[in-house]
């Protein structure tokens, strides 16, 4: 569902890159450090404008149909987007409400699933790096968008956590979702690997 | 007696001063007591959560 692309800063990182994704597919973007993975993801979710070309979603340029695209897409970047002064629960509540989910059950289930149930009343500033990353990924569970764009989702996350998240990715793909992610490690589950398209930069 | 309360025309100043003093001393006594109650309540709750 996407097409041609551009550059960053003064140097062109990738040019005439182009690919299509259909429902149920996972796109794994790989490449050495500095090859432009983050740049590409930010273009895909509309935070950066490509130097040339455009990104299409359901066939429309995402700049013209920005609101549909935003509603159907969740981006999780290098930074977690959590408020250190709110508790884990409050953070997830705000995130849920901002994406139209008012169901406490969904929120509670997500906390349990992510292994944060016991930490729900702790301020996020007091969580460890990995716990914070898990909470950030909780956005995926409360929003239920079609397109997930994840920039190194597994940083700071332990093996258990990785397992949980990969399971979520699988069920999302089985439910006809689309995932775009970067990661320096290979995906471990065969169910993921069989649905996976890889794009290597440089 | 009323002359005593009159304070030679300075009643307002003198009695406000004494009143303020009384109020502030009282607050200083009340705050730790309230804190005591709250702390004991919190600690008990925490302990009862821990034991079962």
């Amino acid at each position: 569902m996407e097409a041609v692309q551009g550059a960053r800063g003064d140097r062109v990182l990738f040019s005439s890159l182009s690919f299509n994704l259909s429902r149920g597919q996972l796109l794994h973007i790989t490449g050495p450090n500095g090859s432009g993975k983050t740049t590409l993801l930010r273009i895909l979710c509309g935070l950066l404008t490509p130097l040339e070309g455009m990104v299409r979603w359901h066939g429309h340029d995402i700049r013209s149909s920005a609101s549909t695209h935003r509603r159907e897409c969740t981006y999780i970047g290098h930074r977690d987007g959590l408020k250190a002064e709110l508790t884990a629960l409050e953070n997830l509540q705000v995130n849920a409400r901002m994406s139209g989910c008012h169901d406490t059950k969904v929120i509670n289930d997500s906390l349990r699933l992510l292994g944060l149930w016991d930490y729900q009343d702790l301020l996020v500033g007091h969580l460890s790096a990995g716990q914070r990353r898990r909470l950030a990924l909780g956005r995926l569970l409360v929003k239920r968008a079609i397109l997930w764009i994840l920039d190194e989702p597994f940083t700071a996350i332990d093996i258990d956590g990785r397992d949980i998240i990969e399971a979520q990715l699988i069920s999302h793909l089985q439910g006809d979702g689309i995932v775009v992610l970067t990661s320096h490690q290979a995906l471990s589950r065969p169910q993921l690997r069989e649905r996976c398209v890889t794009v290597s930069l440089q | 007696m009323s002359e005593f309360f009159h304070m030679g025309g300075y009643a307002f100043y003198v009695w406000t001063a004494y009143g303020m003093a009384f109020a502030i001393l009282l607050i200083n006594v009340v705050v730790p007591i309230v804190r005591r109650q709250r702390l004991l309540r919190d600690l008990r709750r925490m302990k009862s959560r821990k034991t079962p």
Partner: protein
Amino acid sequence: MRLFRFFHRFASPREFFRIAGSMIPWLAATTLLLLLIGLYLGLFVAPPDYQQGESYRIMFIHVPSAWMSLFVYMVMAGTAAIGLIWRIKLAHVIAMSSAPIGASFTFLALVTGSLWGKPMWGAWWVWDARLTSELILLFLYLGVMALYAAFEERRTAQRAAGILAIVGVINVPIIHYSVMWWNTLHQGPTVTKFDAPSIHPSMLAPLLIMSVAFMLFYAVVLLMRARWEVLDQEQRSNWVDDYLEQLSP
């Protein structure tokens, strides 16, 4: 040596909690008694001043609270320094419990001062050196309290606020000597002069008694605050559990 051992024991949280708990009732009773005597002497016995009339009776709270505002600050800075240098937890607790008490004395000195200033100088407030520096003292107290509240981790909060308290000590001599260094509206030293105090004994007596009463009051409230702070800080130790058990069978 005995004294040293006493302090050493006193500095252990558990002993402090116990000893302070047993001291409070006695101290509180003495404070109340002195306050009542002071008020009686100050309001009924002492004669009106020949210049200021009855308004001077504000002195019996203004001067003790002004003195206490400085004294408490020095206690706070001193205990903070002890806590930072010798890493004694109790010293930090004393320092941080002193801050709100000192702030209220300072506030009281300011309020009573301006209630006294209105009839005497004809203005609620003038920007002279002593008044200003007392106001700065209030801000310093508030700064220490705000900094203490701003950190989540208690130990960091105590030490950071302690450093600020020590840095602010410079203000204390400025307040005290301001009336000598600058010619101001405010009264010069009348009581604390080294030779004979230039004040009549029937006025001096209630003033001194009230001062002692304020000092004791400070001790009582400080111990009360410090006890609960210690209990909170030590909530993980066994003796706290024992204590709680003892309270609610």
